[in-house]
């Protein structure tokens, strides 16, 4: 997921094999199957690239990378191929967690540990370990930030630009946002959905800005489409509101740091999950533990935090931001 | 005798599975009308397509003006001075008349169309063809077949060519229009152009031709015959290799005195035809005579339900048909052999036998599953009765010659046992030999008790074939009576009389 950005040696923001202890040492070579949705937006692209780069960084990992797809039928067959191939572990970021549950269970039954990334399966038996971001929590973080800024003003106009609306994760984010806002007596007055792409973000935002002539707070679910959203805001010459991003791309972090746009904060949705999935898969396949924990097994579930990033703490997160 | 303007020797053209041309020689001189004769499928159209650069010959050579010529594409032939009127109307329906005429050599300046200029030039051409009523700006698709044929002619003339090839230009024209066509051909001949003329109507060849070449099965069987003097019997023998009767088969038994099977009463469609009433008894053949554009096709199509009647009724065997419903007509035993074989009749990419059986599928199926062999053999038999060549029921219809395609459409309705048969131009483009067989066939069907309605632009044919004739002019029946009591001259007189009486109705009747 990295970059030609500022200086040369932070080249491995998401990838590190300089971990602690024995885990960094090469063990038996393991084959890991990786399948994810189509990289039709930056965050997903970052996830996949990070996973690939992470695997390359390990000399004892051989990665089999299936074609990214938004067709669950095809993704199921990819996992079946992994099972047929008897890979040592499968890292699976499902297009739709529930729909992939059955095949993941079959993989587990075949003795192949499945590491479930980002979109959770429907059954605890389908994965050895689950590592996921907190979609609901993202919404909550963004909502809390708005509440904080509004500081008791219950008349504030809050707008929301969601991602692909038919995905359950989008629903979770919106729900979290709505719930957090409700706590301080606010609600979303205008909501549109884009498609996680720059162009769709621009399109949706352009219309939204016309629908709401005055906005106080705008939460945009995804920083890739956010590039387009910012372009639309600039095109419309609007600056009366505070915008909050989502996911935490490097572009956005830099812009928060520079503090020269309406974008004042973003909520992190780690793009390191794919890479972490690979790491965990390797540990599990090689029978190792997470060396920072006393526990001898890799945990069942790791949920990543969805912290809010503002000008004040941006340097803390800059390194883990994904370049998109 | 002038030197040959164009000389083709040993032309061979093969299609997958057929040797369409098998060594054809043709010599055309300037200032003559050279007729090309041959049965359906003899290779006439293929030959002229080779000449026009639309096909590349496999063997043989073309010499034009004393020099070897090779036409890699139609443009090369056009550039060399050969313009062609193709048998199938090759116009673009969506374009205006003027655009079609100048397609490929548009009147333009820096790529911009000079609309008024080309409209003016188109109008001049159309006027010189005797058709000032066709507006150059009219959409070509809305013209009748005859109108399109005129546009094709105008297009060929617009090329200022040395050689003009005409493939059955008269097939869709009525006698009046053919007269106009011949005047144009005379002018061209007088100005030293060469014309290659194809027709199945021998009397036309007598009138206009200078010399003729006869093709049979892809070979030249006779060349350089004088067009006027060669006896008809000899020509027919050369073409077909057998004797053919030139007589119309007359009724042999008296017409049974039955109730009419088909009764049309007060039928009308706004702006097309009005107040058409007639009845046909079983065993009777009724002919609709008239000039092109008179509305005869519209009448039979409306009877069939393919167009929705605005007024009047159609009754078959005492039952009135639902308006505008082909289903009802077919269920009542009607069959229509439509006027335009390509657009209305044939599924071009299907095999011959499947086209023939199309209207009779239920007969060849059990529980919805087709009985292929029964279907094929029945269809094959039907195709033999009309003499489809080559005799191969599995051939894709698209690869048949024009006349043979026409026979396939006809065969469809022979196979389907219907009670009332409506035939619109059944012999268009059909050769002399097959034509007389089709006449016999129609007569046989009538004798078996069918009621038949025949539309044809060939007045002699209508009169010869039918028991009773209706003369249609301008959407009205102007005469009705036994066909024995009227001759071609009288028919034309009545049409003219009606035109004079309704002088104001000028419109564009093309």
């Amino acid at each position, binding site marked *: 997921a990295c970059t030609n950005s500022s200086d040369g040696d932070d080249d491995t923001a998401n990838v590190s094999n300089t971990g602690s202890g024995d885990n960094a040492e090469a063990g038996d070579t393991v084959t890991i199957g990786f399948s994810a949705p189509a*990289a039709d937006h930056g965050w997903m692209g970052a996830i996949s690239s990070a996973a*690939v780069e992470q695997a390359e960084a390990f000399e004892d990992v051989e990665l*089999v*990378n*299936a*074609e990214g797809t*938004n*067709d*669950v*039928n*095809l993704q*199921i*067959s990819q996992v*079946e*191929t992994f*099972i*047929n*191939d008897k890979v040592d572990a499968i890292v699976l970021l499902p*297009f*739709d967690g*529930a*729909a*992939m*549950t*059955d095949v993941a269970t079959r993989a587990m039954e075949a003795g192949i540990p499945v590491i479930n990334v980002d979109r959770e399966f*429907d059954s605890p038996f389908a994965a050895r370990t689950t590592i996921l971001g907190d979609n609901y929590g993202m919404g909550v973080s963004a909502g809390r930030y708005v509440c904080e800024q509004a500081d008791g003003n219950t008349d504030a106009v809050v707008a929301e630009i969601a991602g692909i*609306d*038919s*995905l*359950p994760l*989008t629903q979770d984010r919106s729900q979290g946002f709505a719930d957090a806002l409700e706590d301080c007596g606010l609600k979303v007055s205008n909501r549109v959905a884009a498609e996680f792409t720059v162009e769709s973000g621009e399109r949706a935002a352009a219309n939204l800005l016309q629908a709401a002539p005055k906005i106080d707070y705008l939460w945009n679910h995804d920083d890739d489409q956010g590039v387009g959203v910012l372009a639309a805001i600039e095109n419309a010459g609007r600056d009366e509101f505070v915008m909050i991003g989502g996911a935490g791309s490097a572009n956005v972090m830099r812009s928060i740091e520079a503090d020269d746009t309406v974008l004042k904060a973003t909520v992190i949705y780690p793009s390191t999950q794919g890479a972490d999935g690979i790491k965990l898969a390797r540990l599990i396949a090689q029978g190792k533990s997470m060396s920072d924990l006393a526990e001898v097994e890799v945990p069942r579930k790791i949920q990543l935090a969805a912290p809010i990033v503002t000008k004040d703490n941006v340097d803390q997160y800059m390194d883990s931001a994904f370049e998109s | 005798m002038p030197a040959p303007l164009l000389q083709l020797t040993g032309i061979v053209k093969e299609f*997958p*599975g057929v040797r369409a041309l098998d060594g054809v020689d043709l010599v055309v001189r300037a200032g003559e009308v050279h007729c090309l004769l041959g049965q359906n499928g003899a290779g006439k159209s293929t030959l002229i397509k080779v000449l026009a650069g639309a096909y590349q010959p496999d063997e043989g050579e073309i010499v034009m003006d004393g020099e070897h010529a090779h036409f890699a594409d139609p443009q090369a032939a056009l550039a060399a001075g050969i313009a062609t009127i193709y048998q199938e109307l090759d116009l673009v329906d969506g374009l205006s008349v003027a655009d079609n005429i100048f397609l490929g050599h548009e009147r333009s300046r820096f790529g911009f169309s000079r609309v008024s200029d080309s409209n003016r030039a188109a109008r001049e051409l159309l006027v010189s063809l005797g058709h000032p009523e066709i507006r150059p700006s009219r959409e070509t698709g809305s013209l009748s077949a005859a109108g399109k044929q005129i546009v094709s002619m105008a297009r060929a003339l617009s090329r200022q060519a040395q050689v003009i090839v005409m493939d059955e230009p008269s097939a869709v024209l009525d006698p009046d229009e053919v007269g106009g066509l011949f005047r144009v051909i005379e002018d061209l001949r007088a100005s030293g152009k060469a014309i290659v003329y194809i027709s199945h109507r021998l009397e036309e060849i007598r009138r206009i031709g200078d010399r003729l070449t006869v093709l049979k099965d892809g070979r030249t069987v006779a060349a350089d015959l004088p067009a006027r003097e060669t006896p008809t019997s000899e020509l027919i023998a050369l073409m077909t290799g057998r004797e053919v009767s030139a007589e119309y088969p007359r009724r042999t038994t008296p017409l049974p005195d039955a109730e009419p099977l088909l009764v049309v009463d007060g039928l009308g469609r706004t702006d097309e035809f009005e107040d058409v009433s007639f009845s046909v008894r079983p065993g009777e053949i009724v002919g609709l005579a008239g000039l092109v554009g008179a509305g005869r096709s519209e009448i039979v199509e409306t009877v*069939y339900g*393919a167009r929705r009647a605005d007024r009047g009724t159609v009754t078959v065997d005492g039952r009135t048909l639902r308006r505008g419903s*082909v*289903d009802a007509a*077919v269920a009542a035993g009607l069959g*229509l052999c*439509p006027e335009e074989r390509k*657009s*209305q*009749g044939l*599924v*071009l990419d*299907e*095999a011959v036998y*499947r086209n023939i059986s*199309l*209207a009779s*599928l239920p007969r060849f*199926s059990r529980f*919805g*599953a*087709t009985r*292929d062999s029964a279907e094929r053999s029945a269809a094959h038999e039907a195709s033999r009765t009309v003499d489809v060549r080559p005799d191969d029921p*599995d051939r*894709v219809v698209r*690869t048949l010659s024009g006349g043979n395609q026409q026979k396939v459409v006809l065969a*469809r309705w022979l196979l389907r046992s219907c009670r009332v048969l409506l035939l619109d131009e059944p012999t268009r483009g059909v050769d002399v030999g097959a034509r007389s067989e089709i006449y016999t066939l129609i007569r046989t069907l009538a004798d078996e008790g069918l009621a038949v309605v025949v539309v044809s632009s060939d007045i002699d044919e209508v009169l010869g074939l039918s028991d009773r004739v209706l003369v249609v002019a301008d959407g009205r029946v102007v005469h009705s009576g036994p066909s024995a009591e009227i001759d071609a001259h009288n028919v034309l007189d009545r049409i003219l009389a009606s035109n004079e009486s309704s002088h104001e109705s000028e419109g564009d009747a093309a």
Partner: protein
Amino acid sequence: MSTPSVTGDTQTTEAAPAKRAGSMGVARNLGLVVALVILCGVGLITAGDRFASTNNIITVLSLASAIGVVAIGMTFVITGGGIDLSVGAIVALASVWASTTGTQAMAESVGWIVIVTTAIGVGIACGVINGLLIAYGKIVPFIATLAMLASARGLAEIIADRKTQIIRDQGFRDALGARPFGVPVIVYIFAIVVIVGWFLLNRTTFGRRTFAVGGNPEAARLAGIKVQRHTVYLYALLGATCGLAAVMLMSRTQTGSSTHGLMWELDAIAAVVIGGTLLSGGRGTVIGTLLGVLIFTTLTNVFTLNNLSTSVQAVAKGVIIVVAVLLQQRLANRSST
């Protein structure tokens, strides 16, 4: 194993009537067979046993099954001169409708067949609406089915409330998840649909009329065929196959979701067209479609086995499609002359 036999059997039978009609012979599918064989060769060379294993073949066939059933239905619509962009959306709607709590509750008391009939019923209903809009409303198929695409997916989202619906009915899971002789039920379903589809298109009056309606609707009408009604039947048939595909997908994923069948319209049409069915109508081949589907799924499988990057896969896919079609043409031409 069932592929070779399915392909082999029907291949030869289809060849027969086709050959009789001029240049439409075996040659027509020869190039596709060669392309598929080359693809398998590449798979064998690059992935060896992993490619040729029974399991892998079953994986490819399972993947081909649901989309394959839709493609067979699409073959009829395209042969009949139409097109349908709404198939993916119909699959989604059918899967959602058949997996609502209401349907599942009913299935519990009546039996899993309720789920199946609901899915197929919804598919047929959507197909009939498409057909009516096209045949009687005279809306061009592209637009009518585009409208259906938007509406059906929207409706699926509303019904599912954008959540993935899990199928808990054990009867359904058992019946459709079974694997007689080690082969999943859905592969048998696909095989049956191919055989029935082939028979319907080539050996029945329905098929004959489909060719006529697609080849020249005016001629078909004047020959007494009820063109409009037939058009409705065609879209209803495709709708039914979409419903069936939804069932198959539900069996594979144990879910109903408004995101099922995303982009299937393009995949299905591509398989049909690469198989040799003319987009302009009047010419269609079930076996060609089967080969088209198998080529696309095998391609993906070989890519996965070889661990190509997604972007490189996309580029390669485009190039391979072009090469396969060119190959197909050259072979067809050569053997017809």
